[in-house]
């Protein structure tokens, strides 16, 4: 499930040092020789893949928890190798709590926490963090928000003093608010220059519906952000931010005991009435009515996204569906990537995954393909989806996905920031501390029949919305013959004051 975010996001990664992209699950032949070497060859031993030794015990991260008198949750995972600690405040309200008509409010509110706190203005606050060798990492997601730093152990106390100022004593200065809001607005203009960002915007509104709490992007639209006031921000903060709706996450070179003492010192006096929000309601059932086309005339590639609302965290289908999606598009060696990339050369990579949230989260598949093969590439994608029924997941595919996902667990918890973000997810999704053991157990015990049933149910092509960003004429010409539904042009709201997009 953690892989799923990569599917959508990884498309935008590309640096100067180009890289081969391991996309998120799939079938692959077991280690076996391709062509047996000639006998009597001194190198003949190479023809046989080595036999693995005894598997090491699976090491999963351990999370510990305490609760302060004011309701603040303290989550700790100890890792002593290096004198480093990730310290983060996690807030239970996220962009799903944006009031109707005010998408972008949670994002703007949390970003204001860095624009002055306690006795410091923006610059003084940033310099104070700089003196500790760090900058604040911030992120706002549908189910919550995080504000954190990674510091040397010796700087932890100082960092917590700053974090508590930001969470408890934000200044919300009017001048800083006006500036921050303008910056958010300009950032929306910037994001809408990216074909992937455009696609994601339409993906959310077309799969969840634009009035559903998960149906908009955390950053909002130019229109909605334009309308936000400082009173809105203060109102959101007052309603949603407080110790009973927050957690202090400390991971790395720290014990639970020391963490609790530090939490009491810096956050023990925090009083505020906020409580964690309820899970968003389940979105309406998904049936495709149309293919959404975001026009970008002359674009060299077409961005393709397919998806639907799928499941909430804790749904009994979760692990079977994770395995099914992995076989379909979660690994580099998945059916979808091997077809579009390695067989046809249509794409640099194609992937799929699920994102179970506090409420029902999305399943998505995404790729970018050479513009002139948009039709064939979408056709192959539909073929792979139909193939899940006509060519059921094989035992070999299933076992490869199972073993790969389970064995990759220890490697995903190497850094204190990684541990911190896992702890944050547990808090935001209200999951138990042993969630990762539960996941491993669920992946281990999901039966082939369950996996096949999940594949047919959730990856049913008739239930998936299709979003294409690219040259509209070319799309019209190549996609119409596939008979996937009427092509509906969508121009996302890109400028304040412009009429709203179709949905």
């Amino acid at each position, binding site marked *: 499930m953690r892989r799923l975010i990569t599917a959508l996001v990884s498309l*935008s990664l*590309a640096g*100067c*040092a*180009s*890289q*081969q*992209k*391991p996309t998120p699950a*799939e*079938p*692959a*032949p*077991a280690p076996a020789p391709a*062509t047996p070497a000639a006998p009597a060859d001194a*190198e003949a031993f*190479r023809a046989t893949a*080595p036999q*693995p*030794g005894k598997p*090491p015990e699976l*090491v999963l991260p351990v999370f510990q928890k305490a609760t302060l008198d004011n309701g603040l949750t303290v989550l700790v995972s100890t890792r002593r190798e*290096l*004198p*480093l600690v990730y310290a983060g405040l996690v807030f239970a309200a996220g962009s799903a709590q944006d009031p109707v008509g005010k998408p972008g409010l949670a994002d703007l509110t949390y970003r204001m926490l860095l624009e002055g706190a306690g006795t410091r203005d923006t*610059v003084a606050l*940033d310099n104070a963090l*700089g*003196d*500790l*060798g*760090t900058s604040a990492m911030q992120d706002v997601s549908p189910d919550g928000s995080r504000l954190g730093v*990674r510091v040397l152990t010796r700087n932890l106390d100082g960092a917590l003093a700053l974090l508590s100022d930001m969470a408890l004593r934000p200044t919300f200065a009017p001048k800083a608010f006006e500036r921050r809001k303008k910056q958010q607005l*300009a950032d929306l203009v*910037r994001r809408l*220059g*990216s074909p992937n960002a455009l696609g994601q915007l339409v993906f959310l509104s077309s799969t969840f519906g634009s009035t559903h709490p998960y149906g908009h992007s955390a950053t909002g639209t130019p229109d909605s952000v334009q309308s936000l006031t400082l009173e809105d921000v203060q109102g959101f903060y007052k309603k949603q931010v407080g110790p009973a709706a927050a957690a202090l996450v400390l991971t790395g070179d720290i014990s639970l005991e020391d963490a609790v003492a530090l939490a009491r010192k810096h956050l023990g006096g925090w009083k505020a009435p906020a409580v964690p929000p309820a899970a968003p309601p389940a979105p309406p059932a998904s049936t495709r009515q149309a293919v959404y086309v975001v026009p970008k005339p002359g*674009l*060299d*590639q077409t961005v393709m996204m397919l998806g639907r609302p799928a499941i909430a965290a804790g749904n009994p289908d979760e692990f079977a569906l994770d395995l099914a999606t992995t076989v379909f598009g979660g*690994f580099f*060696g998945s059916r979808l990537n*091997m077809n579009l*990339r*390695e067989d046809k*050369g*249509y*794409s*640099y990579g194609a992937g799929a995954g699920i994102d179970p949230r506090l409420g029902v989260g999305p399943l998505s598949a995404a790729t*970018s393909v*050479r513009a002139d093969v948009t039709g064939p590439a979408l056709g192959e994608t539909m073929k792979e989806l139909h193939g899940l029924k006509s060519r059921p997941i094989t035992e070999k595919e299933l076992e*490869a996905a199972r073993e*790969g996902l389970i*064995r990759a667990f*220890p*490697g995903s918890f*190497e*850094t*204190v920031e990684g541990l911190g973000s896992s702890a944050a997810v547990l808090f935001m999704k209200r999951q138990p501390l042993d969630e990762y053991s539960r996941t491993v157990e669920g992946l281990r015990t999901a039966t082939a029949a369950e996996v096949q049933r999940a594949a047919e149910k959730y990856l049913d092509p008739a239930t998936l919305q299709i979003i294409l960003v690219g040259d509209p004429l070319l799309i019209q010409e190549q996609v119409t013959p596939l008979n996937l539904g009427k092509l509906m042009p969508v121009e996302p709201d890109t*400028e304040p004051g412009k009429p709203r997009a179709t949905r």
Partner: protein
Amino acid sequence: MKALAAAALVLFGLPALAQATQEAKPLEPGREALAIPYEKYTLPNGLEVILSVDRKLPIVSVNLWYHVGAYHEQPGRTGFAHLFEHMMFQGSRNVADDVHISMLEQLGATDLNGTTSFDRTNYFETVPTHHLETALWMESDRMGFLLDALTPEKLATQKEVVKNERRQGTEAAPYGLAQEEAWHALFPLPHPYHGSVIGSMKDLDAATVDDVKDFFRKWYAPSNATLAVVGDFDVAKTKALIEKYFGSLPSHPKPTKPQVAPVKHTKPVVIRFEERVATLPLLSIQWLTPGYFENGDATADVLATVLGTGKASRLYRRLVLEKQLAQSVTVAQQSQGAQSVFSIDVTARPGVSTDALLKEVDAVLEDVRKNGLTPEEIQRARTRIDTRMLAGLQSIGGFGGKADVLQSYNHFVGEPSYVAQDLARYESVTPEAVKQFTRDTLRPDARVILHAVPAPRKQAPAESKERH
């Protein structure tokens, strides 16, 4: 020279672990955690081996650097080193076509990839400890027997994949083509950094099977590669495995690195580019600066941090907070073997011209040329660099993890544990040195200035007045 000592030992029939175990240089108090204990030796065929034990998790990283990158390409063959990197995942004599990544994936590998830069190409995977031998088997098979499985069909498909990668990162990416043009201007032909690492569509089309064969034979010899194994493993058993899988691969002479005269710009190059993908104007100013670890490289790092990291940094503060002309600021010293590139990228607010941004950036630079930085700013930058370095050591593999750190020092200075010396470079950066660097190197007349401005039709309405 170290290779010789190793070769001698082999005569005694020992596995070539020749080189005495080296201890990392002692670090100053408070920085002990930055030391990486390691052992380095060379096989008789010239393959360098670096071993470093780290038992925090039952995983092990296998990381191979080939000392060849886009720098070593021939004119008309740009993008070849990277295209070749793709071919390394397509199968070799004993590893079936196209399954390299999926085989490792289904064993639970993480941090599995290959990357190409101008100076080197690397391949890495982190595997559960019991699959170390499989990883070594696979890496040795493609080092020794790639060409046995090479077909024109596989090359044709990967050419298409790479062209898609290029479209994604260049043609269809915000500022992709604009930045490429600036790069070409920075390194005029015949400098080997002229082309992009990803290459041009034309050169990718022109690549042949014979090119792949020649490239492999010339550059992918054991003598031009370094293998690092980092993580939870048994040293003696691993040495024996390395000997088994890599020891008999045939030796070739170590290829010589082409020597190229540095580029010097004596007048500014101004590029005005009509941007088609991005929606906000971008100003990018770039200078050629001293190579990685050369005098001035660390100074440039410190200056980049002070100018562009954090909201209180000089450029962010002036352009984004105070004047509100810019949306974001990125300043970087991109350290490279032959020559580095110092760049300042500023994204404008809607309606703000890049010429207005240039004036502001120049005012900030002029101030540094005159007054240097404050000791507090330099100290803050050093603390950031220290913390970042330590954080990089958390992962044993992957981009910038422990294996990459050992490899990188080894590649550029021949010494895997160079961390003490590396940090010492930053200690010696003074306000005076920064002032001097800004005057001598970041000269107004020795730079490439890129104005990537979206066509007016596509630009969002002005929020402040138009200044074109």
